[in-house]
């Protein structure tokens, strides 16, 4: 259904207005009135989140396409706005995260109002609001101009949020890298829009949709869009900014960045390739599949080497973007080969994983933030035993870990299962090479998923289990209710989306109808209990049954075993008879990942150094041992350092014309002017 204006669109405007108001209110949050930030700003953000959910959900569920235009800017360029099921879906995702952080934020930002980490409050509120506003509006944009304006607003305010705690040099460095790559990305996106606009005869998306591109130009437009949006999404090897930038931002912003901002890259890829260009080609799918597989595998391998909790989570975003892209790649391969239903299945898997990742990664970042808030620690090597001190946070974090490790019955499993199911339909293809590489990609996805489980056993096990490794961690307390509420919302959604996949997939039908004019006819053919993506004979999965079975098993187990059993007593753990164990004898994060480091050694640049100082006396023994380990990402050393050198060398050459003499500069200006006049005439 298509219409001009309408209530959902008004709700979306209201959401944007609430974001703006939230920013305006935080301007007053000077040191003496921090309440403007803690209450006013987050209150409006709450409203913005709720309105986003309402408008996005409405547009998605009711299958509405609403358009509008404004006479802003130059007279020949109107601003076009459109809310359709695809933007509604992303609006819903964004709104959910905004809602969660608006519950979480008031307590979390208290840290910046006083104490060691004191910072001016207005910038945080203002840029958070602009960040959210940028994302809301770019989802509504229906022409390249509006899209790019708000894309830049999102990127730039993101920069100020990354650099918020600017006292640390690492933060400034991370923010600069982020800004640089964001602009390279934006430039390339602009080129892609340029190609489309040239063929469509205008900047509005409607004109681009009606353009008829030759396969070569379509491929070029796709390649530019994939590169540009890929930078934002953080695909390997364009990901280098992401693990630096996400961890240093305040945790609720990290959650927004990993949960929502990088999804805008996915939105861009889907919007440009499926909607604006229209006819996807299977060759693109192969590229997307390969890039996605590489991102998934390298992302998780890099993640597993990290001992900074937030950095580890940031690397996992790269992995999950890879999984999303694998779904998209499969979808493009099938669509391009004429298998519409299978292409739809891939798209559904990708979008489902997009939503899932937003939820569990948001949850995990908020959990890491809760640990940071109470212990001021990001380093796993200093944590331990937090499950005793922060039981509810531990439970929430555990839910996130189980969901991201793709274990049933949580949401991460469903989307990976759908991706596997899509990949298993490879025999439908005619091309033998594709039939062979798709299952191998699926096996690599299995490897990535298994490594992710290893990584989250490490993250949860080292941080929350065992014995505390430092005093601050040993005295941590549970976080305030607001923060728990934010996490609880996301954790509940992680479970619900895992248990009711059939309903979620049915709700997503308008998106696939819009993009590929197809839905999954057989997904719910046996009712909401059974998820049967292709047909009941091919594969089925029933998460509600699983949950019922788990409850029954637990109940029976409780009645038969627990109630009649003798109470346990506590004792010392097994220490081989050597006496008191202490916290330093536990496995550390580095030790945990050592076997994997050894097996996949070539993936990183590993510098290991053991320094032994020999003790005096005739018997050789060590007085002290110093162990150093430095693990680095090859892509930085192999891709970016050479480019950096190249740029510097080029700058030095060009620097010759820079004489410092004003007369020379005037001559340059004159020559340039003449040159342009010659071109114009």
């Amino acid at each position, binding site marked *: 259904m298509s219409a001009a204006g309408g209530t959902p669109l008004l709700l979306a405007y209201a959401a944007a207005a609430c974001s703006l108001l939230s920013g305006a209110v935080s301007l007053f949050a000077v040191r003496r009135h921090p309440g403007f930030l803690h209450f006013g700003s987050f209150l409006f953000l709450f409203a913005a989140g709720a309105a986003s959910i309402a408008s996005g959900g409405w547009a998605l569920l009711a299958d509405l396409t609403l358009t509008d235009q404004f006479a802003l800017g130059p007279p020949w360029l109107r601003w076009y706005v459109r809310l359709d099921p695809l933007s509604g879906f992303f609006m819903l995702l964004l709104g959910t995260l905004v809602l969660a952080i608006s519950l979480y934020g008031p307590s979390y930002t208290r840290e910046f109002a006083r104490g060691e980490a004191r910072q001016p409050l207005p910038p945080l509120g203002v840029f958070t609001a602009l960040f959210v506003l940028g994302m809301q509006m770019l989802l509504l944009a229906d022409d390249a101009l509006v899209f790019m304006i708000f894309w830049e607003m999102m990127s730039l305010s993101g920069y100020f949020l990354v650099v918020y705690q600017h006292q640390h040099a690492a933060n400034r460095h991370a923010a600069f890298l982020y800004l640089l790559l964001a602009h390279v990305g934006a430039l390339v996106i602009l080129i892609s829009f340029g190609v489309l606009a040239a063929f469509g005869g205008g900047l509005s998306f409607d004109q681009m949709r009606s353009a008829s591109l030759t396969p070569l130009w379509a491929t070029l437009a796709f390649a530019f869009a994939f590169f540009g949006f890929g930078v934002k999404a953080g695909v390997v090897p364009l990901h280098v900014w992401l693990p630096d930038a996400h961890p240093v931002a305040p945790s609720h912003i990290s959650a927004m960045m990993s949960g929502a901002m990088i999804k805008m890259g996915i939105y861009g890829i889907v919007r440009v390739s499926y909607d604006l260009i229209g006819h996807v080609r299977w060759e693109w799918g192969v590229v997307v599949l390969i890039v996605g597989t590489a991102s998934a595998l390298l992302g998780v391998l890099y993640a597993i080497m990290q001992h900074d909790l937030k950095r580890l989570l940031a690397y996992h975003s790269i992995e999950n973007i890879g999984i999303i892209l694998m779904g998209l790649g499969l979808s493009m391969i099938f669509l391009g080969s004429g298998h519409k239903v299978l292409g739809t299945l891939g798209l559904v898997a990708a979008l489902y994983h997009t939503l899932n990742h937003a939820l569990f990664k948001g949850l995990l970042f908020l959990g890491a933030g809760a640990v940071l808030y109470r212990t001021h620690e990001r380093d796993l090597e200093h944590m331990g035993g937090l*499950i005793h001190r922060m039981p509810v946070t*531990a439970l929430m974090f555990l839910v996130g870990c189980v969901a991201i490790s793709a*274990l*049933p019955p949580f949401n991460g*499993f469903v989307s990976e*299962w759908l991706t*596997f*199911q899509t990949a*298993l339909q490879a*025999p439908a293809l*005619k091309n*033998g090479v594709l*039939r062979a590489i798709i*299952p191998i990609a*699926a*096996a690599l996805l*299995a*490897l990535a*998923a*298994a490594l992710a*489980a290893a990584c989250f*056993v490490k993250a*949860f*096990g080292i941080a929350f*289990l*065992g014995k505390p490794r430092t005093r601050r961690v040993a005295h941590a307390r549970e976080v305030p209710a607001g923060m728990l509420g934010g996490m609880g919302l996301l954790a509940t959604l992680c479970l619900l989306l895992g248990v009711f996949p059939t309903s979620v997939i049915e709700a997503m039908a308008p998106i696939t109808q819009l993009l590929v004019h197809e839905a999954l006819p057989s997904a719910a053919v046996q009712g909401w209990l*059974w998820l049967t993506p292709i047909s009941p*004979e*091919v*594969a*089925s999965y*029933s998460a509600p*049954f*699983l949950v019922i*079975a*788990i409850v029954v*098993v637990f109940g029976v*187990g409780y009645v038969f*075993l627990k109630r009649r*059993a*003798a*109470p*346990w*007593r*506590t*004792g*010392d*753990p*097994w220490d081989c008879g050597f006496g008191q*164990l202490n*916290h330093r*004898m*536990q*496995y550390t994060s580095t*030790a*945990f990942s*050592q*076997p*994997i480091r050894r*097996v996949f050694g070539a993936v990183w640049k590993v510098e290991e150094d053991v320094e032994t100082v020999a003790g005096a006396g005739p018997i050789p023994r060590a007085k002290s041992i110093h162990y150093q380990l430095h693990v680095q990402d090859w892509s930085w050393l192999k891709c970016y350092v050479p480019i950096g050198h190249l740029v510097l060398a080029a700058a030095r050459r060009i620097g010759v014309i820079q004489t410092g003499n004003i007369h020379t500069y005037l001559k340059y200006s004159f020559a340039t002017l003449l040159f342009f006049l010659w071109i114009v005439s």
Partner: protein
Amino acid sequence: MDSQLIAWVLAAAQALLFVAAAPLLAGWVKCVKCRLQNRAAPSVWQPYRDLAKLLKKRMVLAENASWLFRAVPYIVFGAMLLAAAVVPLIAVRLPTAAIADVIVLVGFFALARFFTALAGMDIGTAFGGMGASREMMVSALAEPALLMAAFTLSMTAATTNLSIATEYVLQAGLVLRPSFLFALLALAMVTVAECSRIPVDNPATHLELTMLHEAMILEYGGRYLALIEWASQIKLMIYAVVIVDFFLPWGIAREFTAAALAVGAVAVTAKLMLLGVLLVAWETVLAKMRLFRVPQFLGFAFLLSVLGMLTHVVLETGG
């Protein structure tokens, strides 16, 4: 409606039978192993006695144990019970098979392993961490090989549903498929690794440096240990039954008559006994590997399953 009800009752009975028979398979393996190695063998019923004893014992928990440590045995046992419920043991076409396919089955194993590893880290001893770290490494390498082998089979049968795949193999008759041979070898190697058998792990040892699975559950005792031990017995049986279902399903009941079910039960018992003997032979001729040889072992398994898949694509689809 009536036949539906019968099917559900049968499915529940089959799941219970599966869980109840798992210790018997473990007992059989142990018994044959002792005989083959010229030792006095315990009775095949010994695992039941062990479980009964453990279930009755009063437990000692380590001081640092959290709620997670106490929940894990139930989660692990529950996951294995669910997994057992979806694998066709003596009959196909049971309604529980539709709840989960082979990928979900792998998901159940992953869930159990994830929580076992966490329990290992909960107490804060070096053993637990060591076991968890090594187990996660081994499983990370075993899972792709396992799924790849499963993909080869499910691409041939055009389904990931265990029951329907079994029926497909039954209908196809005795066809020699090279891809199945590769997949069978890969699956056997993965089974050895995932069920903590020689040469990857040794279920009988408590030698500190050789433990994988045992290191993680070192702190458990009493009824928790019973649940975990039972769960690993079920896991071994699931792997064995999956191999039987995929590669030699003949005899399994295709209709719910007493005669067919009896034939199915006898057939599956015979096949599992045979597999048990093969496992024992394998464990007797091989020695436990060094930990860092395990990646090569599993890499080989992965290679085999990739070869199986490629053989399937190149030779058997003829497209």
